[in-house]
C-alpha cells in the first residue's frame, strides 16, 4: 500500500478519486458488454439502458475533473501523487470515450435488420469479448497499480486489430455476395471499428497506468507502429 500522508484529508480525497475512476470503469465495462448483447439479441431495452447510463459516465467524468483540479489547487501534490492525479484526469477522459463508443454500438443495434440470417454478426461478440477483457484487466491493473499487467494489456491490442482486419474482409465479401444487406453490414463495420477503438483506448489507459506506477513512458508510446 502507498504510504499515508500527514494530512488525512488528502488520503481521503485521493481515495475517492480512485473510487470515482473505478466507478466510471465499472460503468464502461458494463456498457461494452450490454451494447454487444443488445446488438446480437436485438434487444431495444438493453440498448436504451446503455444509452441512458452513458449520462452517468459523463457526470462522473465531470466529478473527476473537479476533484482532480481541487486536489492540485489545494494540496499541491508532488511525485507519485501528482502522477496519479494527472493519470486519473486522463483516464477519466478515455473512459468517457469508451462509454461513447459503447453507446454508439447500442444506437446502431436497432438499425440492423434480419439479424437471424446475418452471418457476420456472430463474429462481433468474440471480438467484443477481447476488447472488454482488455478494459477489465487494465482497470484491475489501475486499481492494483500494476505496471506489469498494464504492459501485458498493451501487447494484447494486436489481437483485437487482427480480429478487426479479419471481420473487415469477411464483411466486404459478405456485402458483395448479398448487396441487400449493405446497410446493415455497413453499420456492423462501424460497430467493429468502435470495438477496435475501445481496444486502442484500453491501451491508452494501460500507458497511463504504467506511467503513474513507474514514472516512465511505456516503450509502446515511444515507438508506435504507423497505422
Amino acid at each position: 500500500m502507498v504510504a499515508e500522508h500527514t494530512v488525512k484529508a488528502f488520503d481521503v480525497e485521493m481515495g475517492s478519486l480512485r473510487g470515482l475512476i473505478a466507478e466510471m470503469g465499472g460503468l464502461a465495462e458494463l456498457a461494452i458488454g450490454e451494447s454487444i448483447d443488445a446488438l446480437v439479441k436485438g434487444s431495444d431495452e438493453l440498448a436504451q439502458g446503455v444509452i441512458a447510463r452513458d449520462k452517468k459516465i459523463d457526470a462522473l467524468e465531470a466529478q473527476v475533473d473537479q476533484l482532480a483540479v481541487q486536489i492540485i489547487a489545494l494540496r499541491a501534490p508532488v511525485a507519485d501523487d501528482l502522477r496519479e492525479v494527472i493519470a486519473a484526469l486522463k483516464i477519466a477522459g478515455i473512459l468517457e470515450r469508451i462509454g461513447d463508443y459503447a453507446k454508439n454500438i447500442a444506437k446502431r443495434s436497432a438499425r440492423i435488420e434480419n439479424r437471424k440470417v446475418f452471418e457476420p454478426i456472430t463474429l462481433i461478440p468474440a471480438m467484443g469479448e477481447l476488447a472488454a477483457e482488455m478494459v477489465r484487466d487494465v482497470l484491475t491493473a489501475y486499481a492494483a497499480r500494476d505496471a506489469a499487467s498494464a504492459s501485458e494489456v498493451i501487447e494484447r491490442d494486436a489481437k483485437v486489430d487482427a480480429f478487426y482486419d479479419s471481420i473487415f474482409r469477411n464483411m466486404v465479401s459478405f456485402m458483395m455476395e448479398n448487396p441487400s444487406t449493405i446497410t446493415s453490414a455497413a453499420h456492423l463495420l462501424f460497430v467493429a471499428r468502435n470495438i477496435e477503438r475501445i481496444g486502442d483506448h484500453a491501451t491508452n489507459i494501460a500507458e497511463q497506468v504504467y506511467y503513474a506506477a513507474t514514472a516512465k513512458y511505456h516503450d509502446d508510446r515511444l515507438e508506435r507502429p504507423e497505422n
Partner: protein
Amino acid sequence: MRGGMAPWFSLVLAALAVLLLWLGGVSLWLVLAAMVLVGGSLVALWWWMGDQPPPEDTIRAVPEELRQARQQAEKGVLNAIDATVEAFSLPVVVFERGRILSANAAARAALGEHITGQDPRVALRHPEAVALLEGADDQEASVTLRDLTSKGSLWQLTRRPLGPDRWAVEMRDRSAEADISRAHTDFVANASHELRTPLASVIGYVETLFEAKKPLDEAITKRFLGTVLREAKRMQALVSDLMSLSQLEAEKHDVPTERIELGALAARVVGEFAPVAGEKPRVEFTRPEAMLAVTGDAKQLEQLLRNLIDNALKYGDDDKNVTVALVEGPRGTVQIDVTDRGAGIAPDHLPHLTRRFYRTDESRSRAAGGTGLGLAIVKHVVERHRGRLDIASELGVGTTVSVRLPRLSA
C-alpha cells in the same frame, strides 16, 4: 510557584502603588479608595482562579491518554475484525464509507491483493455493486452480478450492517453452477451436430451390408467395414475430446495447485512422439538448464502439449521437423513454443482458431483425423492455469504456438 504566593502579596503591590500616587500629590482619600479597589479585585481574581479546573499541563495530559486509549481500542477492534474475517473461507470484505477496513484472504484472491485501505469502489466497480456499497444502510441487501472478476463469472454479494457506519460484504461464487448448466447445453449442441456426420455414414454402410440380398464381394465388404471402423474411431475421439472439454469447463474456476516441473513434463510428452524403428525423429526438444516450475494440473498440461505437437505434426510439412522449445518468458513466466514448418495459417483465420469446431480447411482436417477441438482444449487449459496463448503464423513458413504460464518462484 503559584502555591507560595499568598493573596496578601497583591495587597503589598497595591499599597506600593498608592504610596507612589500619594508622593505624586494625589489626594490621600482617593488614593486609599483606589487601593481598596485594586487590592480587592486582585484577591477576587485569586479566589476565582482557585475555583478553575487544574492548570494547563494537567489539562493536556488526560486527553492524550484518552486519545491513545481510543486509538488502541480502535486498533484492537480492527485487528479483531481482521482475525475474524480471515477465518472465513468465503470472500468477506468489511468497509466503512470510502474505505475498505479489512478483506480476508479469499477476498484478496478474488479481487486483488491491493484492496485493503482502498475506496470500496476500487475493489468492486460493477455499477450494481457500487449501488450496493453506496446505498449502505442498516438493512441487509443482496445482488447477483455477472462478469465481476472475470468473463463468465457469477457472484452473489450480500451486504450486512456490522455496527454504526460499518458493513460487511459476503461474496458467494455462483460461477461453477452457472457454468455447469451452460457447459451442459453446449455439450449437447456440439456433440449432436458433430456426431451426426460420422454416424450417418456408419449407418449407411452398415445398412448396405445388412440389407444386401446376396453376400457382397469380399473386397467391397472389407472397404465398407474399414470406413465404418474409421468413422467409429472418429466418433470415439470426438466423444473423448468433448468429455475433456466439458470437464475443463466444469473446473475452470478451481486454480490447480500441483507443483510441476515443466521441463520433465515436456520431455515426457515429447518422448511419446518417439518414432517407430526405421523412421527418423521429427520432434526436436530444447530446454534451459534452470528448473522451470509452475502450479498446474499435470494431466491437463500433458494434454495441452500433446495436442500442440499433434497439430504441428499434422499440419506441418511431413519432411520438416517440429520444434518444442521451453524458455523463460518475460515478467516471471514460463513459455513453451511449438513450431512447425509448413503451409502456415492465413491471418484471417488466426483469431478464430480456438473456437470449437473451427477448421481452416474442413476436408484436410477430417483427412488428418482432427476433431476440431484440439485448440479449444488447449485454450481452456491455458485459461485454467491463468496463462496466455498466442498463435503466430506466416504463410509458407510455418506456425508457432506459444503458451505462457506464470512461473512458480523456487
